[in-house]
């Protein structure tokens, strides 16, 4: 189980520094990392990631340039492309698969793609080795969760974490904002999910202080850290320094 699933916004602080950042993450022992594709209308993101996406777009981090930047990288954790659906649809499944082949991207997390909406598109990506990570939120009851996990199945133990995990949304709302979530209900939900599936779980939305991260690990899940990291990187903090403060 991973100790941490970091999230960074592609193109913020810059596309140029992205390869170095990914290499650094790998060197620091990060196995998998979520990389955000900057979008014009990030409806599930809070102010920090909205601002980061906006900066990245201003600096020219279009979807194609992001993917080009990732092409050929070997010194990188496994990447989960965190994105909204529309840019992918505009690229198209075939072309997208071709582009991803050259990158360390192993899976996609498409915020606004419920499993029922683009079955053909999703099936082609999955068949090509790019599964879409299931999201489980506080409004997802256990029955629904069961269905979601079945319809976006675990590819199996021989696959890396990046392709296997399900993402547990810690609380209602958007990324980043608000104080630390109350972890008691999260603990219950994680336990319930663990009782119906032995899939690795990542827990995100609102986690930032070391104690919350430790509590998530104590549940047997991987904590996601996004907004706090993006903010630190934008402020010029080195990845190593940041991780050090969070992992102790």
């Amino acid at each position, binding site marked *: 189980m991973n100790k941490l699933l970091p999230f960074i916004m592609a193109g913020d602080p810059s596309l140029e520094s992205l390869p170095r950042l990914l290499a650094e993450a790998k060197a620091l022992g990060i196995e998998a990392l979520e990389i955000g594709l900057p979008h014009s209308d990030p409806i599930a993101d809070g102010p920090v990631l909205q601002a980061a996406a906006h900066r990245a777009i201003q600096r020219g981090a279009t979807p194609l340039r992001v993917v080009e930047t990732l092409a050929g990288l070997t010194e990188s954790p496994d990447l989960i492309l965190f994105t909204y659906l529309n840019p992918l649809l505009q*690229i198209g499944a075939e072309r997208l698969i071709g582009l991803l082949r050259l990158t360390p991207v192993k899976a996609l997390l498409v915020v606004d793609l*419920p499993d029922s909406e683009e079955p053909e598109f999703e099936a082609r990506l999955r068949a090509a080795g790019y599964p879409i990570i299931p999201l489980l*939120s506080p409004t997802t009851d256990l029955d629904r969760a069961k269905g979601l996990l079945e319809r976006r199945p675990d590819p199996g133990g021989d696959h890396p974490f990046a392709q296997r995990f399900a993402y547990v949304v810690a609380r209602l709302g958007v990324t980043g904002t608000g104080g630390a979530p109350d972890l008691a209900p999260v603990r219950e939900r994680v336990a319930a999910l663990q009782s119906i599936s032995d899939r690795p779980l990542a827990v995100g939305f609102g986690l930032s202080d070391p104690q919350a991260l430790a509590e998530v690990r104590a549940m047997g899940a991987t904590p996601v850290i996004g907004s706090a990291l993006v903010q630190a990187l934008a402020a010029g903090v080195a990845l190593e320094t940041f991780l050090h403060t969070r992992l102790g």
Partner: protein
Amino acid sequence: YAPETLMQPLLDLEEAFRKALDDSSFQAELKSELRHFVGRPTPLTSAPRLAAKLGLRDLYLKREDLTHTGAHKINNALAQALLARRMGKTQIIAETGAGQHGVAAAAACARLGLRCTVYMGVVDMARQAPNVARMRLFGTEVVPVEAGQGTLKEAVNEALRAWAARCDKAHYILGSALGPHPFPTMVRTFQTVIGEEARAQVLEQAGALPDSVIACAGGGSNGLGLLVPFLGDALHRFAVEAGGHGPALGEHAARLDGGRMGVLHGCKTLLLQDEHGHTAETASISAGLDYPALGPELAALALDEKIEVLRASDDQALEAAKWLCESEGILPALESSHALALLPELAKRGFTTVLLGLSGRGDKDLSTYQSKLGI
């Protein structure tokens, strides 16, 4: 096309909506409020002087400008507020562009005793300041949205985020026929009262159906509301988009020609976007028509050639507003003026009897009319 957090609330909403539709007590309550609070049925006004001026034999105006709060938006806002109360929700979230939907939601919430929060772009707040004041007088909190162009699209983004954070207690009253299912269906359903009334009225007053029906279309709540009840009739149906001030991307909000299929705000439809799949900027003199996506049901009807989609430019709309003011003593909203602007085109194409949806009153647009028309 909604984030998982909203999926269950959307499923719950759909179920509540279906049940309400089948519940005669809900229908009776809605009907009573529409009649006694909103002022339905709205009149159908024959406009003989304008018809003569433009070379039409008969012109009928469906007067949504006479509803409480001054635009068709209240039909949907009130119905959804009743539905929310029925679902046990105590809070309402809404977005607004020009402010008409925000005012309608604020009024409906005050009427029903629901707490209301409206998200509105900072640019729209500045140019529609009177509507901000009206919402606040109704006890609604208006939250400024700073992102992007500071207009409707960003307001929807922020309203969706707020709903995701409070979907346990709050209902989101979306104002147009867009967004994730069931919103487009629900909004269309609550707005077809416009066309149903108009169809019966024109039959009563003229003794026959017109040869064409025309309405402006932003998201599509007004367009669908008027046009859908005429889908089974042998006549021509037109929706008019904002042609803005030019044909290039970013200069207009004409989604049929200018857009291609894409996903925004939880629905897949014709969308103005750049080559990266980012939503494009739009331009229109009318704050109610500058949404970058055409509602999915309207887009489908347009692609299916059930409804013909035309566009009117800023200048054409301004000119048309003047016609109606001077010929009939009715001040149309800038949105409605886009439909009026196409009347000469209809006359040229041989249509003689037109039913036009006057979606709202132009009081909110007075400062624009003043500066652009030199009043």
